[in-house]
């Protein structure tokens, strides 16, 4: 008998997926002509297991987004040291698309407009790449339709060009739609809460929570504010400052940040 609607092509005996970041150093080429690379990440250590949710919180310029984009393989960033492994596989050796197919998903803070490519075409091409085969058309249409309904996305969006003319909230919902459809092993959410009003934040958070409830995804929730943590409860909270994790704790650490802010992590030391 054929197995019906397996959400992904993970073999059932696969162990819990684990993303291991060890002593990661990342530099970026300075945008002005002052020359020379600037080190942004200065030795990041972090392990994210499937089923866990880690919140990474930190002030602006602390390197949170650099961590997100480096894990996804953005060419702007140069890895100068350390390692990133997903289930023992060297992520840093993989191209951007290989990382995605290996199960790393980055929900971007500023999703990019892709003129000429419709959302429906994009989603199907992406799902085909990630799943290794084209989803059956009939079940796929239903799957997308239902996922869009859950995120209160107008069905007309399927025919619009990717992110073109989308509002900030629409772009974020579209990112979470992809998260739900692509079912990664590791989801990195880069400031998904920024620019959202309360309703949109709730809808987006519910989407993330649906994916988390499957227990199959490890979530790295990058945020500046504690607001989203009211909807998405993290298991671990890390404070990011000056290119590394300055302190780690449980959910109570977020409460402390809510009250005290980032000041104690920012002062006394080189500027990031």
């Amino acid at each position, binding site marked *: 008998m054929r197995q019906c609607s397996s959400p992904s092509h993970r073999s059932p005996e696969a162990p819990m997926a684990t993303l291991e970041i060890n002593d990661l150093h990342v530099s970026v080429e300075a945008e002005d002509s002052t020359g020379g690379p600037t080190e942004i990440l200065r030795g990041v250590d972090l392990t994210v297991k499937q089923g866990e949710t880690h919140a990474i919180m930190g002030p602006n310029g602390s390197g949170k987004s650099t961590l997100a984009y480096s894990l*996804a*393989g*953005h*060419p702007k960033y140069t890895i100068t040291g350390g390692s990133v492994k997903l289930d023992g596989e060297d992520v840093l050796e993989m*191209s*951007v*698309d290989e*990382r*995605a*197919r290996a199960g790393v*998903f*980055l929900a*971007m803070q500023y*999703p*990019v*407009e*892709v*003129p*000429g*490519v*419709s959302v429906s*075409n*994009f989603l199907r*091409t*992406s799902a085909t*790449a*990630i799943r290794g085969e084209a989803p059956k058309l009939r079940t796929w249409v239903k799957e997308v339709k239902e996922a869009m309904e859950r995120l209160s996305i107008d069905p007309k969006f399927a025919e619009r*060009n*990717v992110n073109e003319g989308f509002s900030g909230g629409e772009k974020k919902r579209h990112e979470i739609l*992809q998260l739900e459809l*692509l079912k990664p092993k590791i989801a990195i959410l880069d400031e998904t809460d920024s620019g959202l009003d309360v309703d949109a934040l709730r809808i987006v958070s519910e989407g993330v929570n649906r994916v988390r409830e499957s227990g199959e995804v490890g979530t790295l929730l990058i945020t500046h504010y504690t607001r989203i943590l009211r909807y998405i409860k993290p298991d671990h909270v890390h404070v990011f400052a000056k290119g590394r994790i300055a302190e780690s704790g449980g959910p109570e650490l977020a409460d402390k940040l809510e009250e005290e802010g980032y000041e104690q992590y920012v002062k006394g030391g080189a500027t990031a």
Partner: protein
Amino acid sequence: MAEAQTIPGGSNTSGAIAVAAESTTATRMSAPPSFDVADFPVPHGREEEWRFTPLDRLKGLHDGTAQASGGIKTDVSAPDGVTVEAVGRDDERVGRAGKPVDRVAAQAFSSFEKASVISVPKDAVLTEPVRVSLHGEGGVSYGHTVFDVGAFAEAVIVIDHTGDAVRSANVEFVLGDGAKVTVVSVQDWDDTAVHCSQHNALVGRDATFKSVVVTFGGDVVRLNPRVTYAGPGGEAELYGLYFTDAGQHQEHRLLVDHDTPNCRSNVAYKGALQGDDAHAVWIGDVLIQADATGTDTYELNRNLVLTDGSRVDSVPNLEIETGEIVGAGHASATGRFEDEQLFYLMARGISEQEARRLVVRGFFAELVQQVGLPDVEERLLAKIEAELEASVS
């Protein structure tokens, strides 16, 4: 008059809308239209109509040194009822749709041996396209073709260019009242070919002319699709699709001359560029003369720059001499396939090659659909794929 736009480096867009001004479209040409090559001085490259063209790559088509040597194989496949004749330059059916507007076109008119007149009788509704295939075998050739489509006739015409050639040839489309004509002209030359051609359409009362120009090949391809109207109610749709590779120069210079009331025109050209020194030029002139009340016109040019090192010049010009029109507009934009777009698609598991394919296919989709002939559409899509493969490997 020029509108500035924010566009990426390596491309240039300038546009103008002249209202009730003196005729800039006509005065920008260095000589008035003529059938006689002697009426045009040899261009030196600074003339308005030649300033984008690499004259030194025209293999003498512009200065009289290109001697006709043949080397082109022509096949015409015409459905029953369609006649094909070879006639002299003095035949009254030759030259009705417009005079040559530059020296190269006039050279072709002065140099061809026999013109080919392909006639579709009035009221005939062709169920099969008229196909003209030209295959270059390396020589210099001049030509002239007239498609004479009678009143209320309906025809699809496919003109196909392949092989290697140095060719200047003009094509006329004369549409009787109420006729419906779709022309697909495919420039699928080898990368060594040089091809210049002026397309003149004379659109009869209530007739519909649709042109789809597809340019992939050639070292230099320079086409002048032009439309005028013989009576009110005429409609012209001019579509174009080009894929300009490293080292290629592809130039499309359009003119829609609204000199008759209540006619419509719609122009949409799209091009993709990749590779060093790929150069695409698009000139879109629309002239609405004082008598052309009730005119409705729109023109658009879009370019997609896939790699560094290529260049686009896009110049829409709209000249309006009457305010009593339905609508007139133009748009031109050149965008880049950016690293950020590539990253976004790849971050969703899509390979680099597939990402480019997605973007380019999407970009061209609406134009490919305009062809309306499955075999030609499939060939275009395959050609686009092949161009993309070439860019990645």
